């Protein structure tokens, strides 16, 4: 860590020279935007999952305030409604574009890369215009998020200039002329707006993505974001159609049910053009050649975990989807059982899955109160050995269970 601090200090001098503030603009009137452009912006905002970080739980959309826990402290999503005082009402289109492209706010200060400008920099001008039209026609909300709570030295914003010099590569997406328009669309979305790698690619100690490990699997808010390449551990290889179904509905009967930070992503993807979700699904399905085995549960080994499984889980999961809700997939198919870490299965087990009001399909009750830590560990051990497809036992259960309990 000391070494990084020195690099930071050195680069700070070079790179953190203040950027220019852009002139404040009068908040544009909503009717000044073409409704078709606003509609397009709405879809793009959904593809970008923008509302998730910029909306507090139970709060007004885009008014900010949602806490994002990172290894460096807690960041709060900003208010991007067109409120002139607390939102971005005085941001011109140029200021908005610069924020996405260069990671600078209107006053010229560096933005934390939790705002994934590493991806947004690749957006086309036209898409940025549409996004601007969309956010500037939202309901203005007067609301200031709490200040970020970051540890030193991460709370020194100017040092972000150094970070950017090391890791940030601005530049618009360049389509590959050898690929089809559909394939380029998938690549464009995945590598820009949808910012999939922001969670699914591992990061280094300074929070920068390890590009040589693209889509090897990363972490987001205490959850593991599975590998989206050949390292994907799904027992049944993902077909493009299955991936499409999953991204669209949050549920694929042979793989997974969306939970944790992926839950809002699929909710947003339910709202965009089907073709765009297909493009994303095709892009990633091509990156995940599977091993093609039919998963099978091992024989029940008995013991305390078996009784817990039978009484708490088997009621739904042993019968599969047909008998019951849309969500009870047989665990031998479940990706969460095959991951290198227990954290996702732990979090799903403790907190369950609660879809938004009125949305059918995904549901699971949580067991945080019903099961003691010792019982949760028994259940993890039993489930991994019976349904994990021969993967080794998890060695991180104690640590991850502690973290999961603390996060609640």
């Amino acid at each position, binding site marked *: 860590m000391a070494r990084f601090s020195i690099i930071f200090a050195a680069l700070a001098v070079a790179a953190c020279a203040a950027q220019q503030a852009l002139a404040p603009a009068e908040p544009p009137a909503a009717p000044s935007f073409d409704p078709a452009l606003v509609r397009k912006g709405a879809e793009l905002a959904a593809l970008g999952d923008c509302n998730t970080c910029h909306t507090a739980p139970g709060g007004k959309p885009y008014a900010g305030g949602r806490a994002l826990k990172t290894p460096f402290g807690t960041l709060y999503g900003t208010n991007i409604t067109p409120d002139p005082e607390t939102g971005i009402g005085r941001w011109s289109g140029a200021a908005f574009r610069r924020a996405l492209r260069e990671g600078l706010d209107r006053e010229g200060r560096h933005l934390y890369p939790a705002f994934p400008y590493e991806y947004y920099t690749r957006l086309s001008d036209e898409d940025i215009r549409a996004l601007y039209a969309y956010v500037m026609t939202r309901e203005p909300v007067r609301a200031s998020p709490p200040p970020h709570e970051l540890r030193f030295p991460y709370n020194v914003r100017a040092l972000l200039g150094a970070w950017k010099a090391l890791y940030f590569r601005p530049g618009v997406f360049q389509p590959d002329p050898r690929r089809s328009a559909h394939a380029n669309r998938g690549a464009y979305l995945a590598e820009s707006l949808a910012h999939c790698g922001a969670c699914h690619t591992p990061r280094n100690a300074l929070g920068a993505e390890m590009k040589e490990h693209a889509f090897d699997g990363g972490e987001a808010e205490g959850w593991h974001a599975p590998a989206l390449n050949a390292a994907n551990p799904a027992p049944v290889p993902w077909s493009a159609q299955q991936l499409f179904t999953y991204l669209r509905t949050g549920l694929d009967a042979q793989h997974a049910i969306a939970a944790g930070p992926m839950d809002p992503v699929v909710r947003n993807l339910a709202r965009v053009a089907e073709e765009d979700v297909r493009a994303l699904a095709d892009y990633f399905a091509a990156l995940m050649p599977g091993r093609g085995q039919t998963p099978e549960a091992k024989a029940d080994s008995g013991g305390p975990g078996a009784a817990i499984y039978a009484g708490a889980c088997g009621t739904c999961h042993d019968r599969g989807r047909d008998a019951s809700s849309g969500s009870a997939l047989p665990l031998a198919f479940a990706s969460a059982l095959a991951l290198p870490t227990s954290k996702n299965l732990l979090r799903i087990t403790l907190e369950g899955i609660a879809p938004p*009001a009125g949305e059918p399909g995904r549901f699971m009750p949580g067991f945080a109160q019903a099961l003691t830590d010792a019982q949760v560990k028994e259940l993890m051990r039993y489930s991994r050995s019976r349904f994990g497809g021969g993967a080794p036992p998890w060695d991180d259960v104690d640590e991850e269970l502690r973290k999961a309990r603390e996060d609640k």
Partner: protein
Amino acid sequence: MNRRQFLATGGALVVSFSLRAQPKLPGSLAREPLLDSWIRIGADGGITVFTGKAELGQGIKTALIQVAAEELAVEPARIELVTADTARTPDEGYTAGSQSMSESGTAILNAAAEVRAKLVELAAKRFALPPERLSVANGAIRAGDGRSASYGELVTGELLHVKAQPPAARGNPRERAVIGKSLARVDIPAKLTGAPIYVQDLRLPGMVHARTVRPPSHAARLAALRTAAVEKMPGVLKIVRDGSYLAVVAEREYQAVSAMRALAAAARWNKQQENLHSDLQRLPSQLSVLVESEAAAPAWSAEATYRRPYQMHGSIGPSCAVGLYRDGNLTVWTHSQGVYPLRNALAEMLGLPKKRVRCIHMEGSGCYGHNAADDAGADAALAARALPGRPVRVHLMREDEHAWEPYGSAMLTRARARLEGGKIADWHYELWSGSHSSRPGPAGNLAPAWLLEKPFARPPAQQIPQPTGGGDRNAIPLYRFASTRVVHHFLTAMPLRVSALRSLGAYMNVFSIESFMDELAQAARADPVEFRLRHLDDPRAREVIRTAAERFGWAGYRKQRGRGRGFAFARYKNLAAYCAIACEVEVERTSGQVRMLRASAAIDSGEAVNPDGIRNQVEGGILQSLSWTLHEAVSFDASRITSRDWASYPILRFPDVPERIDVEVISRPGAPFLGTGEAAQGPAAAALANAIADATGARLREIPFTAPRVRQALGA
């Protein structure tokens, strides 16, 4: 001679003769005119009141006790009320249609008044005083000189075994002691402390447990079954198989559940293809013109089509029944809405004489119409017959209740109107709906009976005639127009099983009519409340509308961004309670989420026996309708129902609940009881749609108003 023997030996003839000779007796007295069918008084003064209606959670027991206590001048606590039991109580058909107060309440009110008059007459003779000199209180009749006689002393022999005489004298409605008071519900303390109140709680000595294995779809039939392994499971007593009907009985309840799962896994079914998806307007139908006041083919000012999906009763507790078959007699404890019709259906299904079947009502989870309660009664009958001498309890699993209950019919309506001088001149309304009544009576309306080796065929779809109507309930607007045409396309063969769901077609028709009234008000640039009043001359209708608008603060309403207000009104069945509702909603444009913030309602159900009970029903009606209207649609694929639990059929949860609902009860002392339970559902749905339109400018015409649908309507 007991009451049943009386009926069996020609009493019915006497009744019909007496009916011809005299004016019609009020309420259910017309069906059961003997006073002691309703009220009996023991020598110890104990008063027992009988009703053929059942407590469904609507608070009917409390209200009926109040009515009896009022007229008999006793404390409500002194009255024992016996509800629906084919061996003990009058036959009042179904507890449905918000008719318990108008039928049973009216019967008990008049019977009690007549009993009291008879007692006063007897006491007057005994004391040799004119009746006016006597006072009645606390179950006794007193003379001014200190002499008194209790009811128990006065009632002798066959005093009450006589037919009621119309019109029975009634107490002065201005001097009510018990009626009109919000008496605390008599059933609530036991329910809130875990006393065994529900049929689900019934545990008889020696009782065993059954679970059914329903086919995976309605059309599937059993092809093969291996039972050997299941028979050896712990506690298993019997596998009941009759054709494609399948159930298992075990000593312990969870043993039955485990055996049922194993049995389901061991069964193979022939899956006959069904086509459940259908365009309602292409289904076979019978057309009836309900109103045709003048032929006109004008240039319409507005036209709109509204849609409603199949929707579920969705009782929180799946249906349950306990059966006992002993010495050729069957007893079934059931939460059916109609013990007599179920008794008849079970007798037919089992080939037993009716007199060998007894159905006793016990409370269940709220049913909201014809849910699987009767089916569970049939399950209990079949399992009990297979295991004579032991009480067998059948509890449906959640998936069986969801997938097999009869749904509220999908419907489509089309409204057209022409405005002239700010008023509606011509009104044309058409509706397409399946049946809203496929209850037993016939055994063919019990799902288990379809599966038997010798199956019972479903009887042809039934219409409920006007003026109450089924799918066409409330299809005729109460408003006055120069010309009106209303047409009902009765769909005779629905792809999904359908029957009565609370308020039947009124929910959809009121939603359509009251949405369209707002669309027309907008076209006429009129205030929606004032526009309704322009077309109404019924003073009680006008009063509930004005009252709801006032309570809501309609006149001084200040609209905030993202919010809007909506109004709606109907008189249920055009002959029961009047109800008007105003509500305010907030629509989150980006997500498409709709939240009802508050609602104000006014209701006039005639003389209010228990105002808080009425408020409870109206609040509940609004919230249930909010759930239907925002969230609910039965889902299915080509062959089977896919709404099989609360994850696949989501309903209202607490975070969606408004901040406030207030209900004003307009009581009309002395006026007939009109019934309350289904008055609010239609107006609540339309008020919601109208408020969304006010908030956003977007008109939602297809139920449910899910977030994606709202976003689509907003073009967001």
